[in-house]
């Protein structure tokens, strides 16, 4: 009998890009709001960003159904943590939880490319970047999704973050102030939407700092 080929795939790619930048006392997380499938746009107003804890925000691109399932899993585990420890989870703790949650589905992965941003226990900005099965590292900035190959080289050029592996240790967070980082994010998405068909419509920008979490939007090309 000839080898059977699957005529149905459990996965789909809804496109989109996400970016996160860590600063000395803030963290900027942004994602576009376009959700597509193939050449069709499903909606122009879909949020890829999810608040996981008081100082911890996640943006994910890829297959949004898996993203939604992942967000629900993390929210539930966070609730249990709050009941058991009587406090919110810190960003580094959430980062490891996300890594383990992704790896538990190692043989049937969440098709979700995540970027986690927030403030660590000392109030400094931190960004964690992931692959689909949970390998993660703390970085100064990161981009995931369909526009990441366009966005990352530009961020490399502008932010020049020294590697955290260098000895003597150098700080990975960017010296930019919050307003400059937000401006950079807007520029980066404007460029990405010029050349990536899956990125566009609107950017949702979330800023986490000592005063709390705030959200703003910017219009992008709708074509």
């Amino acid at each position, binding site marked *: 009998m000839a*080898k*059977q080929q*699957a005529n149905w*795939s*459990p*996965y789909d790619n809804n496109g989109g890009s996400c970016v996160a930048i860590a600063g000395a006392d803030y963290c900027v997380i942004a994602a576009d709001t376009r959700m597509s499938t193939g050449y069709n746009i499903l909606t122009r107003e879909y949020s890829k960003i999810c608040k996981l804890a008081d100082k911890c925000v996640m943006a994910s691109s890829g297959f949004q159904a898996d993203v939604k399932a992942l967000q629900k899993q993390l929210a*539930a*585990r966070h609730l*249990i943590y709050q*009941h*058991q*420890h009587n406090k919110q989870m810190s960003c580094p703790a959430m980062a490891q939880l996300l*890594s*383990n949650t*992704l*790896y*538990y*589905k*190692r*043989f*049937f*992965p969440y*098709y979700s490319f995540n970027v986690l941003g927030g403030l660590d226990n000392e109030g400094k900005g931190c960004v964690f*970047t992931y*692959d*689909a*099965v*949970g*390998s*993660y*590292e703390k*970085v100064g900035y990161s981009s995931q999704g369909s526009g990441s*190959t366009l966005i990352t080289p530009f961020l490399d050029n502008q932010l020049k973050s020294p*590697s*955290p*592996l*260098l*000895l003597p240790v150098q700080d990975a967070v960017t010296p930019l102030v919050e307003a400059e980082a937000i401006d950079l994010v807007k520029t980066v998405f404007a460029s990405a939407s010029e050349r990536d068909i899956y990125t566009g419509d609107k950017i949702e920008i979330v800023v986490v700092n000592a005063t709390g979490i705030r959200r703003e939007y910017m219009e992008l090309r709708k074509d």
Partner: protein
Amino acid sequence: MKLDTSGLESAAPVWGAPSELVDGFSAAPSFEVPNTTDFDGFQKEAIQMVKPAKGTTTLAFIFKEGVMVAADSRASMGGYISSQSVKKIIEINPYMLGTMAGGAADCQFWHRNLGIKCRLHELANKRRISVTGASKLLANILYSYRGMGLSVGTMIAGWDETGPGLYYVDSEGGRLKGMRFSVGSGSPYAYGVLDNGYRYDMSVKEAAELARRSIYHATFRDGASGGVASVYYVGPNGWKKLSGDDVGELHYNYYPVMPSTVEQEMVEVAGA
């Protein structure tokens, strides 16, 4: 086939009180497996989608003073460099290191799991686990997942009661004891430099320089290796990170640019 699922047991409820909250999540620890007729084909596609980071250079060797461990820091997905700052030397505990080659998530997760198992051993037996024991624990887990698509090529280096220890463990289930290993796409280049310069009685400084040079030469010739060359030393008091140097800068340290005498100088042509 009974899979070793001890890595998946979620944390026991903190106060042992009614655990209805947690029970719903940790019924029987198991990996979810897709319901398909062709498991291998599905895994092949899933792996393609995930494209684990391959391409790397890691090395470790035993010498008179202990164990030297070094690695590059580049992660590539096909031809795209996904990161230049991956931590490929994983700190399992203060006296044992593991290196990462193959799937980044696989290595990170199972090394963290190994660290947990080592700590449990310490608590149960009131003594540290040996490098032999730790490497065997990891090798047994990887063997039980043989054929499922894990990609792990790691070296476990440490110092225990018998002195320095070094084992190579991979996801095919192989486990080898040895004095010198290099793993990854850049390993042939690293072996060339390492085997040539190796002597058992080197000082820590000489051994570190040998390790650094080997990684540098591998990153020079192998496109899938690069970033930062990290060098760690494992001695009787545990491991210590000795250096982390950008390989681009190392190049100019080893081969400085000499100002050369100018033969002919170009002169600007006067406006036509």
